[in-house]
């Protein structure tokens, strides 16, 4: 856990320092002290201060929070479904958000053209957030009967809804012009660019509070791994736990997707790495996943914006490119261990 805290600080320093404008650690400290109204602890240029405060810092903070949010939500979802292959995307949060964003991007050009473009840009995250929440709500309702939620039905309903939304997104791509296609693509591959302080401040509580509340469900999630009936016998509030996991995950991941688009594989892979590092006990594994996810997403974003300077690679491509082979290796190693 100490190592993970160290990794977090290191990723912060690297991300803050590297880019088109280099800022050494001492200058980072100096700028931060200046911004907090403390006496400067070193030297920095005005350019360094501007780049750090108005461009890099909000972006890093967003990366940290989104990484933490996706990872905590991934860990909780896998626990709730008792399945290490589960992912918040399975219950429709990401696809619902993407569909809402896609509708606004593609159809907004035709039907909302009279609105100022700033206004439309501000609507985008709100629509995406609502799209994610509504889709998850539908999946949850479909799987609930008589006050009980059947998680297998929830998974299957999510798969079906995701497929339908995939078709709808395909149709939107077919209908879109060059500009909206670019916008849509950028959305589907994810990016942390363009975040502003006001956006960040509005989103921060919605990203972080649900993620931290998910950590409090670690005990019941451990119990759920034994089975729902067993968790009830152990004295856990099974239905409340499932409802809380769904609502909190939808809130935090919905917010993350609304701000950054769909960033793949983080919520699936980070809990796996955390489990390898500290074991499967959610009380330790979830905080570890949260710290690790924050670090890894920040580092991934560092690569996304520096690898192809002055171009920027969509971060979703990076996380999937690294995550997919990693996941396959894990899977094969797991199978080898199971057979031996």
């Amino acid at each position: 856990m100490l190592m993970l805290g160290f990794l977090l600080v290191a990723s912060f320093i690297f991300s803050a320092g590297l880019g088109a404008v280099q800022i050494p650690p001492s200058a980072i400290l100096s700028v931060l002290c200046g911004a907090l109204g403390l006496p400067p602890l070193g030297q920095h240029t005005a350019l360094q201060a501007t780049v750090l405060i108005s461009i890099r810092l909000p972006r890093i903070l967003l990366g940290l929070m989104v990484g933490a949010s996706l990872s905590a939500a991934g860990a909780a979802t896998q626990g709730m479904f008792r399945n290490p292959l589960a992912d918040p995307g399975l219950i429709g949060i990401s696809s619902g958000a993407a569909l809402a964003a896609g509708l606004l991007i593609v159809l907004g050009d035709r039907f909302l053209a009279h609105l100022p473009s700033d206004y439309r840009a501000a609507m985008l995250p709100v629509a995406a957030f609502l799209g994610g929440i509504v889709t998850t709500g539908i999946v949850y309702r479909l799987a609930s009967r008589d006050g009980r939620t059947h998680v297998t039905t929830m998974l299957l309903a999510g798969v079906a809804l995701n497929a339908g939304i995939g078709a709808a997104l395909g149709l939107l791509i077919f209908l879109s012009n060059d500009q909206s296609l670019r916008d849509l693509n950028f959305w589907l591959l994810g990016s942390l660019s363009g975040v502003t302080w006001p956006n960040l401040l509005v989103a921060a509580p919605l990203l972080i509070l649900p993620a931290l509340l998910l950590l409090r469900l670690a005990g019941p999630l451990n119990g759920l791994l034994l089975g729902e009936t067993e968790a009830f016998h152990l004295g856990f509030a099974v239905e409340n736990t499932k409802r809380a996991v769904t609502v909190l995950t939808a809130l935090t991941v919905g917010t993350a997707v609304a701000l950054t688009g769909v960033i793949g594989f983080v919520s699936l892979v980070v809990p796996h790495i955390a489990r390898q590092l500290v074991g499967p006990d959610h009380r330790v594994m979830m905080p570890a996943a949260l710290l690790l996810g924050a670090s890894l997403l920040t580092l991934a974003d560092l690569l996304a914006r520096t690898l192809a300077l002055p171009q920027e690679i969509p971060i979703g491509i990076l996380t999937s490119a690294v995550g997919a082979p990693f996941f396959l290796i894990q899977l094969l190693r797991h199978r080898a261990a199971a057979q031996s």
Partner: protein
Amino acid sequence: MLTAHNISFARRGTPILTDVTTEVKPGAVTALIGPNGAGKSTLLHILSGAIQPDHGTVLLNGLRLAALPRKALARQRAVLPQSSTISFPFTALQVVLMGRGAHAGVTTRTEDMAIAQEALRMTGAEALADRPFTSLSGGEQQRVQLARVIAQISGADQDEPRFLLLDEPTNHLDLSHQLKILRVARALSRRGVGVFAVLHDPNLAAMFADTVIIMTKGHVLTQGPTHAVLRAEIIEEALGVRVIVQRHPAFDVPHIVPVE
């Protein structure tokens, strides 16, 4: 005392249990036998509180089960499932410690650890403590699960009698493991725990139970002391198999032999 009064339960209009009244005494082993589809597991789930009956009440130490807080209930009764799969690499000791969930904040971590170790020792599974649960054989897993439910109802933080419900605990186990599991259950009953076990094999009931309940088609056919209930004509009526009941060659219990 764990008692069920006039329990009826139907699923989609099909009656599963009809007017069942029975009791599980502390300090004794009560075995429930009967053919498949007699409603045995449903009765166990109703006694555990996992299913609410349509009619009738279940009382645990004189209080209505349905009205007990979840955690208080979990400290007084535990349930051993037929088998469980865990898809994450917990160690056996971690699985046993999960049994202490309802005691969080009541007992200390050191006490929980001591209770878990003692439970593992009781089930002869102390050597498995650090092994991944998923790597254990079926019999070893069941011993660890038994340790988990023992840990759940152990400890000095409440003095009402506790109850352990076993749902066909010997399914898929070899003979040696079947005997081990039931021997531990019987030892627990001698420490004051009320043990209720759904069993398939009337001979296991004969060897380990103080009281036997026989159910068919959602009714209690008969219940009472083991030697009084396990008689040829009753078993034939309940299980539909012609049997001879002898005296067990080694122990003073009935021994049931099918003769068709």
